């Protein structure tokens, strides 16, 4: 029984899942940022003196908004060593009820300091007030502003502003963290799709079908490789196309150098064999002992790091069949990275039990080259 699935499409679209959530979080972020938008309700410059308070224009306030009152002394010509005590009240116009009253002292002082033979000037100014508030009931309000006391300044000029913000329950910081985190997750998922495809292929069994580079193949049998140079087992699938062509698909672990690092790291390689490619040993030594071989027009060098003894377990009809072998790997220049689709490596294998040998040119595939997979599952499995 063949079970069709959309796993390849799922891998293709894997980064879209966190991206969708990132888009939702971005909308949440934009919504939360609306809570930061201020609308100015009143902006007046008034001159205050002791005695009769100055009334501001009327403005409308609602209980579901947050408001900020900003007061700032305006100096047409800054005068020092003065101070004034400011009194501001918020009044409900209709009921004449005072909602709140605040007082603040504004001063501007300067002088000269002297200490142990050193001296300098100092200056201290307090001329700003900020006050956040909400109101309990909707209606029209105004400010009553006056000077209650003063030193040397019977009048001061103040810029008074009232601005409103709509409160938003969603805070923008966690939303920003969520957007950045999910974008990172999407990038990570996109980056590791090659590994995801390799992991997925490990479940391929005989009878499963794949479409690789436009051609449909059926898995004939599965071989598991345990090498001395790989920490994870490698997998090899004997494939047969509808026209009878046999190919070998493999997932193997090799060591390679990253461009910026001096340490070798292990990578999972998705590869397919290149049938009918001739290997020519460079004269001088026996073919299998050669340090250099030629697959025209490329010369391949022996790679000791990825060569060694191995054990191949072939699974067939529920039974395991084991073959031991010696593998020699040949590479073109530096060992290619797992993402270097199209690059080739050459494998020589000598089976220890039968003394038979084979050469194989393997080409690195990208996860995109596996276009579809139909896993075979026996009925009842």
């Amino acid at each position, binding site marked *: 029984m063949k079970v069709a699935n959309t796993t390849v499409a799922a891998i293709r679209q894997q980064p879209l899942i966190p991206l969708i959530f990132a888009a939702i979080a971005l909308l949440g972020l934009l919504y939360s940022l609306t809570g930061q938008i201020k609308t100015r309700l009143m902006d007046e410059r008034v001159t205050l003196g002791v005695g009769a308070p100055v009334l501001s224009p009327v403005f409308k306030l609602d209980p579901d908004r947050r408001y900020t009152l900003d007061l700032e002394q305006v100096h047409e010509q800054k005068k020092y060593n003065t101070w004034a005590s400011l009194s501001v009240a918020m009044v409900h116009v209709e009921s004449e009820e005072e909602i709140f009253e605040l007082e603040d002292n504004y001063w501007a002082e300067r002088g000269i300091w002297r200490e142990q033979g050193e001296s300098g000037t100092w200056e201290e100014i307090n001329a700003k007030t900020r006050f956040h508030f909400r109101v309990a009931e909707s209606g029209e309000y105004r400010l009553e502003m006056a000077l209650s006391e003063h030193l040397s300044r019977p009048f001061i000029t103040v810029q008074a502003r009232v601005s409103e913000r709509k409160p938003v329950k969603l805070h923008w910081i966690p939303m920003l963290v969520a957007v950045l985190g999910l974008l990172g*997750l999407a990038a990570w*998922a996109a980056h*590791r799709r090659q590994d995801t495809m390799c992991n997925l292929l490990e479940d391929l069994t005989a009878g499963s079908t794949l479409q690789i580079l436009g051609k449909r193949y059926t898995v004939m049998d599965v071989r598991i490789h345990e090498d001395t140079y790989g920490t994870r087992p490698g997998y090899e699938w004997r494939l047969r196309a509808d026209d009878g062509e046999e190919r070998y698909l493999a997932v193997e672990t090799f060591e390679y150098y990253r461009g910026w690092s001096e340490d070798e790291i292990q990578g999972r390689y998705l590869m397919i064999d290149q049938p009918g490619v001739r290997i020519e040993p460079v004269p001088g030594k026996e073919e299998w002992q050669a340090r250099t071989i030629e697959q025209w027009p490329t010369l391949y060098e022996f790679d000791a790091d990825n060569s060694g003894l191995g054990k191949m377990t072939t699974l*067939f009809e529920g039974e395991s069949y084991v*073959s031991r*072998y010696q593998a020699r790997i040949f590479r073109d220049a530096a060992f290619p990275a797992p993402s270097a689709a199209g690059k080739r490596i050459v494998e020589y294998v000598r089976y220890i*039990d*039968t003394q038979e040998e084979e050469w194989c040119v393997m080409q690195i595939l990208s996860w995109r080259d596996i276009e579809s997979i139909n896993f075979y599952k026996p*009925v009842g499995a």
Partner: protein
Amino acid sequence: MNAIVDKVENIMLSWLIRWFRSLFGSKPQQKMLPAPRVPQLVSLQVGDVVVHLDRTYLVTQRIVHHANGFFWFDYQLYDDSEDEHLWLSVEDDDELIVAFYRPVDFVLEREPDRELMVAGKTYRLKESGESDAKISRESGTETRTRSRRWDYVGPDKSTLSVQCWGDDEFEVMQGERVRPSVLELMPGS
């Protein structure tokens, strides 16, 4: 790290699937009965029937040979009407190579030479090798063992096969190629 990412993605994926299912609903899947087994030359089982030129054979033994990841098959056939045992060899090497092998009266007590004279014909060694094998019998028993094999070619492309089981148990058989299409295969009851 990968495991955590996988887990987060799986949770998100299952959440999305549940959401889409709740939107569009999922239809119950039809259960299908398993298709009847159609025996093939590489998948004959003990008890299956092989018909060739009006003779009907019962598969009484199946041997799966393996070397270097490759498999080939020998089936012991029994013709009840003639009380005859013979072997059907099937090798899937780009094309199906199928042959009947019948035992010949030739005693070997050591490894065969590169040339053998059997029933007046000279056979030359073509290839030899060692394989491990799984033997399935009518009794239901199964055995894993190793065997060695020497394949010879004689005049008129006739073939001869020598198999050695254990240390010194040699079997010599003459082969006759047969086209796969002339064989009719039926599943056992």
